[in-house]
């Protein structure tokens, strides 16, 4: 159709889907909540049905590595919220990214990725996938020409995060989608920091989405999990670049996924190969806990964003703060783009630079009481980390700066507490830094006199 925007059907609203999608009350027990199907396998009524389930001619469950009724509710809810044709849940966000990549890439293939990505993602792409023959070129997420220039004949995927790490660069998804599609490449987006409540990448032109459900989707810091969503938008048969989908798969009786499954080719292969063989599946108890989280996703994200805005604005005017990187503030270079692409807000993870370097950063963090010092984001509780004294402790200052991490850079994940309590906590921490500066100045003055 001429007007080929991927507009979803005019169906139920987002809040309704957050609560209901994928589940109707259990027909046998009447259970309103999603039951936890803690069963490794499911009984076959007869052998022909069993053969039919294995042959993808019937709908149903066989074995919980492949699919599970509790997991399926979560998968269907995420497909509904992200406007995908389907999804597969995984053991972690990392497993989701690995599954997305390996479903379409093989040894000899290449990825063009934003360089402002989660550290673990950088490790996976730079060091680990390259051991298996899949290489990656990293480029500045603001530089569309750099993406274009990095594309090689063996490039199969373009990847980026909606909000970069640590600079919170806003990825121009519509522009990058156009660029990728011009080269007949799919665009994969990590939307962990925004969730479908703030951004639906498929609506903006992405073809595939991954989330770490460990963060805001579950929202309470109690589980590790991931999701791959297939937009069903990419035509895998438009070139010969994607043989896993466009050519017979010997591992499934010469099935040609794109031929038989149409828009669901990718997600079907992800389940029938990647989850089957790599086996990084989610536990049903985990799926249940993520579903609990999703029920309040819209409410939580509103408060996360409102608190983050207040905290960011407070920090920006503080004398001990060098700079704040939050695209919700006009000072951020991507503020305009964020207003357009993320009208409901820019999430609740951001970083700021404290005056006084590593020492100041460490002292600040150790003096906080309401913010918890740990390596995670997207909890209902506020979290903080100082990369230079923790995750990047062994990295020298020059290399730190090269990856956009200043010695005094602090990353916050703003939770759902009273904003005033968060601000008071930060204020007290910054007072400690201020005292360090005052002492240093006094010592300097003594020396001079």
């Amino acid at each position, binding site marked *: *159709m001429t007007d080929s925007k991927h507009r979803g059907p005019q169906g139920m609203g987002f809040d309704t889907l957050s609560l209901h999608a994928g589940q109707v009350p259990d027909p046998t027990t009447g259970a309103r909540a999603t039951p936890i199907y803690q069963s490794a396998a499911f009984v076959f009524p007869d052998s022909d049905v069993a053969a039919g389930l294995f042959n993808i001619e019937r709908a149903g469950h066989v074995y919980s590595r492949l699919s599970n009724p509790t997991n399926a509710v979560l998968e269907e809810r995420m*497909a509904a919220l992200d406007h995908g044709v389907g999804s597969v849940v995984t053991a972690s966000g990392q497993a989701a990214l690995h599954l997305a990549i390996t479903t379409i890439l093989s040894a000899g293939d290449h990825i063009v990725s934003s360089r402002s990505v989660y550290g673990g993602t950088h490790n996976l792409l730079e060091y680990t996938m390259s051991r298996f023959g899949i290489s990656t070129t990293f480029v500045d997420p603001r530089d569309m020409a750099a993406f274009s220039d990095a594309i090689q004949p063996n490039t199969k995927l373009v990847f980026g995060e909606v909000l970069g790490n640590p600079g919170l660069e806003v990825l121009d998804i519509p522009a990058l989608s156009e660029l990728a599609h011009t080269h007949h490449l799919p665009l994969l987006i990590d939307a962990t920091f925004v969730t479908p409540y703030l951004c639906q990448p498929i609506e903006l032109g992405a073809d595939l989405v991954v989330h770490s459900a460990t963060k805001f989707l579950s929202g309470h810091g109690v589980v590790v999990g991931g999701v791959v969503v297939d937009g069903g938008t990419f035509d895998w048969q438009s070139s010969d670049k994607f043989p896993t989908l466009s050519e017979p798969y010997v591992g499934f009786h010469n099935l040609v996924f794109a031929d038989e499954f149409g828009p669901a080719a990718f997600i079907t292969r992800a389940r029938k190969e990647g989850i089957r063989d790599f086996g990084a599946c989610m536990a049903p108890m985990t799926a249940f806990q993520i579903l609990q989280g999703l029920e309040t996703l819209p409410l939580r994200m509103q408060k996360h964003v409102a608190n983050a805005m207040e905290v960011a604005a407070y920090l920006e005017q503080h004398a001990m703060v060098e700079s704040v990187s939050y695209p919700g503030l006009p000072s951020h270079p991507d503020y305009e783009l964020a207003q357009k692409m993320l009208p409901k807000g820019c999430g609740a993870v951001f970083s700021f630079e404290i005056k006084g370097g590593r020492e100041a950063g460490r002292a600040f963090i150790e003096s906080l009481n309401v913010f918890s010092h740990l390596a995670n984001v997207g909890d209902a509780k506020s979290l903080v980390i100082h990369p230079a004294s923790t995750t990047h402790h062994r990295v020298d200052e020059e290399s730190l700066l090269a990856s956009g991490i200043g010695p005094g850079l602090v990353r916050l994940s703003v939770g759902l507490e009273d904003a005033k309590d968060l601000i008071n906590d930060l204020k007290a921490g910054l007072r400690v830094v201020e005292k360090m500066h005052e002492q240093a100045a006094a010592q300097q003055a003594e020396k001079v006199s």
Partner: protein
Amino acid sequence: MIIQLDGKNVGFSNGSGHPAESAPAIFFVHGAGMDHSVWVMPARYFARHGYRVMALDLPGHGRSEGPALDSVDAMADWLARVIEISAAHAKEVTVVGHSMGSLVGMSLAARHPERIDRLVLLGTSAPMPVADVLLNAAQDNDHAAIDMANTWSHGQRSQLGASDNPGTSNLHMGERLLERVADDVYFKDFSACNGFTTKDYAPILAPTLVMTGDEDKMTPPRAGMAVAGMLKSSQVTHLRGCGHSMLSEQPNQVLDALSAFIRG
């Protein structure tokens, strides 16, 4: 899969089957704006059970070359040719049609009765009037046509994002499938449905199975019942809690009914 008919590509899926020459054949015909992929599950089932399966792309849809055909009768004549070249030695032929495809099946059974032994009509209505809003939006190639038809084609469970097929969104699958159709084809299909009439046809003698969904807003159950009433030999399967998109909404129930009717 691709075969040639009169110098043009005809796309279809064979359900990954390797049938014998004399194998009984089943031709699946999709509805307006769709393609062969809606039949993936029954196609694979019957292929595994030794049938020659052709889940077809109508001209101008999927991988079949256009132009799309203007009328149901033209589609049925095309189908008769496909059957002639690909199932000449088949011991029997069943045609299974959904929505517009059910009209193609009826036209074929009435006008080329020698080509068909058995007929299955899913989500059917004769006549099959299309609402003006939908027709007009399709004429303008306006995406609203897809949104309307797709929303009306799904029952309550799908509206709430639940699917029998683990991890699938029936609504978004429908949406994406319809977005693949080339400009003007959707309008042509709806016009063909709108222009369909059974009045000039000979009575249909082939044994026929009609399937209705009680939440079907496109072809309501009473329309399907009326079709069954016009046929010489018919039986009806009612799908409870099912909308018009029966193949994705209740794949197992559809499969069981097809299997009982075709394999006995």
